[in-house]
């Protein structure tokens, strides 16, 4: 993406709050993510992980605080930011009545992707779905739909991936395969990734850095180097008060 952006961090969040009516879902989150870094967010249900991802994805507007993505402000440059990010969640954003190809073609149009047909074939190959490309999405298995959803998020070659429980429905082998598809950027450099998951083990294996959220706040933050899996589990139990 832009040259000027490469000097600054990929994502910068300062004092972010988000309220739904009277309920505060995010209570002052601050976070900096460097280019190419992969950060995993853990936390119990209702911690605010999805809300944070949705704010970064410009689906939700921040109530207060600053959010910069590739040095662009979400409040003023949401449209430009959307070109830099790919979003995969446990919901696929796919239309069940259309075929996988038609879905990908539709999103390619929405992202102004050049040479649509070739690009759709490319991403379909990347997620291993070339053979079922012309089947209706509603006739595909849950994991296959998730693969198409990942292909959808890669169409416009985003530099940042936001993954909210993106492994939903995927078998262990596919998870590894698709992880590397999402992690490896167009020019071989790693993509910046934020992911949320409830699987401590897998999340730990994939990340450079990990965060634990609870009740709308970041409770714990550590680089993977300083921690092993048992350390993570201890920290998780300590932060959330949950025994695992």
């Amino acid at each position, binding site marked *: 993406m832009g040259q000027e952006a490469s000097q600054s961090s990929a994502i910068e969040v300062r004092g972010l709050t988000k*309220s*739904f*009516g*009277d*309920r505060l879902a995010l209570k002052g989150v601050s976070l900096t993510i460097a280019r190419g870094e992969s950060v995993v967010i853990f936390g119990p249900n209702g911690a605010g992980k999805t809300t944070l991802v949705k704010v970064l994805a410009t689906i939700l507007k921040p109530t207060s605080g600053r959010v910069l993505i590739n040095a662009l402000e979400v409040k003023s440059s949401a449209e430009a930011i959307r070109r830099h990010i790919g979003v995969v969640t446990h919901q696929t954003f796919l239309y069940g009545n259309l075929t996988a190809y038609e879905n990908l073609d539709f999103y390619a149009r929405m992202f102004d992707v050049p040479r649509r047909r070739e690009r759709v074939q490319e991403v379909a190959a990347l997620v291993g779905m070339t053979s079922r490309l012309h089947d209706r999405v509603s006739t595909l298995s849950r994991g296959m739909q998730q693969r198409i959803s990942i292909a959808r998020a890669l169409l416009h070659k985003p530099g940042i991936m936001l993954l909210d429980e993106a492994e939903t429905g995927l078998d262990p082998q596919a998870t590894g395969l698709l992880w590397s598809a999402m992690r490896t950027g167009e020019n071989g450099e790693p993509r910046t990734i934020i992911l949320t998951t409830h699987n401590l083990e897998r999340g730990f294996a994939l990340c450079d850095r990990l965060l634990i959220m609870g009740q709308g706040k970041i409770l714990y933050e550590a680089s993977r180097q300083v921690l092993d899996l048992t350390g993570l589990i201890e920290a998780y139990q300590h932060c959330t008060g949950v025994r695992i």
Partner: protein
Amino acid sequence: MKRLILWGLGLVLMFLALYLVFLYAPIEKVMGIVQKNFYLMVPMGWLSLLSYFVIFIGSIFYLTKRDRKWDDLAYSAAEVGIIFTSLALMVGSIWARPIWGVWWAWEEPRLTTTLVLWFIYLACLLVRSLTVEEGRGATFAAVVGVIGFIDIPFVILSTSLWRGMHPPLIIFEEGGLDPRMRLTLMLSIVAYTVLYVVILMQRVAIRRDEAEVKKLKGLVSQES
């Protein structure tokens, strides 16, 4: 303090209006004593329109500023508005009975317009309580409020043209109104408008208190 003065002013104006209506204004020759109803009907009709204007202002500012106080205003105006609109319908119906011999006259565009307004008020109030995610109800009600307000000229125009009448450009199109009657009408309108403002302010204040109580309850339950 300001509210107290308004209360007092409203009270005085109310009594003055009553005096004018029953002792000062002459009895209409054709319709007789029934015509006194008019001094209640016109203010009610006026308030059901005015309330919509308040909703519109509240809604627009809520959408742009996202400040809760504007939503409180819009919500209160909808609630108070639907009461006055219901009253307008009742009074209109009581008026229709002796004049046209029926309880409801579709020929009367102002009555029909008021009925449509009543349904739009209802939509405004219902959409809020039917919204799943709390917090979005206020936004949705504001959207309905804006659309409803813009709809009003169309409602007035179409319901009056519907029965081949000219749209009532002013409320007092009865040209040959006795000057004493006109004075009485004007004063009634002012008195009821003051009453409306007082009730509206009271409702907004109550709503603020409700929110405060809810917040405190939340804090208490968090403590324990």
